[in-house]
């Protein structure tokens, strides 16, 4: 820590520090005093009454879903393959026939059909879409859920950023800190991991007592001043974990509390159950829930794989939108559905489609997003070898623009400047919000 930072921290000791100072100090580990202060302030500064918190549900289609077989089918074109299209509740909007239930809720949503990126590798593209930035060896950017939770510190018995059935890339806090990493759970049909005491309550209480009255006390003796609040947060995290273990809100993870009819409407899949749990978690105060559905990487037998994915996605997505609407949560919850890139127009000899970041689709609905809109378009018969990869995309949208639009829809300034732990200024998003997509 340099002396300027230490000076800033001394100043921070007496006054509520700015976010810039806060993040500037973070590099030295002193972000902890801010975090601990945030914990302390949680009770003192509850969210203003009447203000509805804004949330995100990210339906992450890992592997790269084909826009041809989902939201941008171009029926009867040279490259359409076996994909056909159906009408939706929005006049003139057609989507894949593989998504019949989704077609019935498209009047709540907006489709972006012209997303473009420069990342055609899974790992890098996932990072790109989830954070809004291309991979950078110098730092890890936070994902959307982490940004939302960081923007609105608040008390909660349950984690505010949750990833259900995460595969390779659950949301991370990145340079904002591990505190904002997604709490990971598996299929909601299974209990939340590590949430159950392995011993009786009495025995556990005795363990906790011995831990804090004896061993932790001894550890703190003669060591750093305010060791707990300014360095380890060991007891703070333990208290939060114990609170979660005994919280009645844990029921939010338990989808068996919902009717059989409702559960069935989401489909018999971990993804469907995850979508239902996502609604319950949002109701309980979680700010961002990510539900992952894999299996979209269709280099061979594209149509079969995409059809299988759509069979799982379709009832879950449609039921999710309907349930959010029914429970008056759609206006305050932004639903995002898509993957890391699209798939090639040309069908390869193995009847597959390969990676295609030059024009693919993203589904947005809910909080701050327009209804029944389509933004951008792709050429039904693009030249895959064209030098200008944007030539066949109408109104191209960059990943940065997508993030700027999402943050704006959530009422968060996309252009706020963070300082990374080493003092490097980083904008929340380097893109521009697309007004036509917003409500």
């Amino acid at each position, binding site marked *: *820590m340099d002396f300027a930072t230490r000076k800033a921290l001394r100043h921070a000791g007496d006054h509520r520090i700015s976010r810039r100072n806060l993040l500037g100090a973070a590099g030295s580990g002193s972000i902890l005093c801010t975090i601990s202060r945030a914990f302390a302030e949680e009770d003192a500064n509850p969210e203003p009454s009447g203000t509805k918190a804004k949330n995100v549900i990210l339906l992450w289609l890992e592997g790269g879903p084909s826009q041809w077989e989902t939201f941008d089918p171009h029926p009867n074109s040279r490259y359409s393959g076996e994909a056909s299209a159906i009408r939706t509740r929005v006049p003139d909007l057609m989507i894949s026939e593989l998504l019949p239930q989704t077609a019935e809720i498209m009047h709540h949503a907006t489709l972006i059909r012209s997303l473009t990126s420069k990342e055609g590798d899974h790992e890098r593209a996932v990072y790109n879409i989830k954070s809004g930035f291309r991979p950078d060896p110098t730092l890890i950017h936070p994902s959307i859920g982490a940004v939302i939770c960081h923007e609105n510190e608040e008390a909660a018995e349950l984690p505010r950023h949750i990833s259900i059935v995460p595969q390779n890339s659950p949301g991370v806090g990145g340079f904002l800190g591990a505190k904002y990493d997604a*709490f990971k759970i598996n299929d909601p049909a299974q209990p939340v991991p*590590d949430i159950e005491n392995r*011993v009786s309550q009495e025995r556990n209480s005795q363990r906790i007592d011995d831990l804090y009255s004896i061993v932790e006390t001894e550890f703190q003796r003669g060591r750093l001043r305010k060791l707990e609040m300014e360095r380890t947060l060991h007891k703070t*995290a333990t208290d939060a974990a114990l609170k979660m273990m005994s919280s009645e809100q844990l029921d939010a993870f338990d989808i068996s509390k919902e009717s059989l009819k409702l559960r069935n409407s989401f489909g018999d899949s971990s993804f469907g159950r995850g979508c239902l749990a996502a609604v319950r978690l949002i109701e309980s105060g979680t700010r961002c829930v990510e539900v992952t559905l894999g299996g979209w990487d269709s280099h061979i037998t594209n149509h079969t794989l995409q059809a299988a994915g759509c069979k799982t996605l379709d009832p879950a997505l449609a039921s999710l939108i309907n349930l959010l609407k029914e429970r008056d949560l759609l206006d305050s919850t932004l639903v995002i559905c898509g993957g890391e890139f699209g798939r090639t127009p040309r069908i390869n000899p193995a009847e597959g489609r390969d990676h295609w970041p030059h024009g693919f689709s993203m589904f947005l609905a809910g909080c701050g997003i327009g209804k029944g809109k389509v933004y951008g378009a792709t050429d039904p018969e693009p030249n895959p070898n064209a030098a200008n990869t944007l030539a066949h995309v109408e109104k191209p949208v960059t990943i940065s623009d997508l993030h700027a639009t999402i943050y704006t829809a959530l009422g968060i300034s996309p252009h706020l400047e963070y300082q990374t732990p080493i003092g490097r200024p980083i904008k929340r998003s380097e893109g521009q919000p697309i007004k036509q997509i917003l409500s």
Partner: protein
Amino acid sequence: MRIVISSIVKLTRWSWLLIVILLAYRFLSSGLSTPSLSQGLEPTRFISSLGKTQQHDGLGATIHSSTGEEWSIPEVQEINRSISVLDEIYLKDLKEAELQRADHADWLTVCRRLSLALVGSGISLEEIRNLEQLPQKEREETHLQNLLLDSRHHHYWAERWARYLVGTDGGQFITYRRRRFRIWLAEVISENVPYDQIVHDLLTAEGLWTDRPEVNFYTATFDSNDGNADPVRLAARTARVFLGLRIDCLQCHDDFLGNVNLGDANELREGKQQDFHQLAAFFTAAKTNGLQGIKSGTCDYSYQYLDETEEITVNPKVPYGEDLVGTETNPRHQLASWITHPENQQSARSAVSHVWTLLYGKPMGEAVDNLPLDETVHPLLDALAKDFIDHGFDIRRLITVITGLQAFRVDSRADFQVTEEHEFHYAVFPLTQLRPEQVAGSIIQASRIKKTDRDSSLLLQFQKLIATNEFVERFGDRGEDEFDSEHVTITQRLLMMNGKMVHESIESNPILNTTGHLAMFAQDDEMVIHSAYLCTLNRYPTEVEQERFSQRLRDADDRGKAIEDLMWVLTNSSELTWNH
């Protein structure tokens, strides 16, 4: 006759059974009693006449050279001289900062730090018992030198080095073999290949990624450049890892924040976009040659700079110290020779910074790879870099010197008010959270009496691998940023309190774990508590702790469960998951 034969057979069977029982008992009860010198570790010989040990228990042991041979007395004296010079700088810094210094930490604490740093876990009870047989002033050095020759250290550091050399990503499936790369690193660490040689081998690597594992330094970037080495990523990686400079921002624009100063050492200037891309141009000489892997060629790099209208050809050029560039015709050899030039002290600073960070769990300055050319990150850095160069880039010697410093041996607690400033100047040993693999390693080690290494049973090694991977994934692996300061999270506490690994480690198991051993073989409650503390926290209990847990054991209806509870408490403590 038949009766005689039958008797012999029976006698043989019973003898075998008796031998098996005795061996099992010896295994189960090992570590709980004071071992004889003939058991386990053979203590190394010491050269106490060198005098250093009398001053602050510094280097006093016979130490090993790169080949594992004992170093000569003059070499040991030279190491002691280096430590003395560096200690003077350290003490001068404390004096100027007007800071009190904590006392020397006890030998167990120092040995725990060494184990955490070099093999990624705490010390085993077996190792502690063996060290206890030595005179106290010899224990720390003996432990250090034993660890440096331990295969656990070579493999553990290989993974840490792999993280900053190639990252943790999977890379391209066919052309990138991270495991091969890691094993190669373990081999060069085991052989104590000089640092400059390692860097040279990496930067000039040629051949197939399977035959020449160092080639994976290049193929790790194939995924972002269509099956070819990515000059931009390699430039950023080289600047950070081998030069200790963060010049990534120059990829897109000139430095307008005054963060990057480059150019001539005596006349530094603000970094420019050209600095980054000229460095990147060196790597375009690494050509992909199909199934023959990487081969050398000529540089061909062009880039469209910000505010320019077209791409221009960019020729390779180093970002500072151009006068040190040699005359090699192969651009990659030229770059490698420049980086490892004895007068390129910045490169040695970077190497020292990485080794220091692995040993202390925190960088000397703000970040392990941010050592601006014109800033004194820490008073010890330049002196250590010079010492490293002067002694042939010998990594094992560097580790011995750094861990011999008073800064490494000082206590983390003091009888004065400890502040972050004390930690910054190493007036006290800094408290750092263990990385996930260190926590996992410490839990697994704490659950065993003997040290867990490659000589352990295959079953145990397999269990350790699986359990560690699961644990690290849940605990939260920070990947390449593993030295960023962090704090305890809810997920981590849930995992520690209720998780499978901790549960299986502390659950009484007479064959495999400490809890079972203590329940079956410890003579009394005092022995149970002492052994539990030594296994988990690598220290003896205080009187208050002894009293509390003695009472718990006395009052327990089920003594086995009371020992489990004791192990749970110690495993869940901050002390186990923090270096101190």
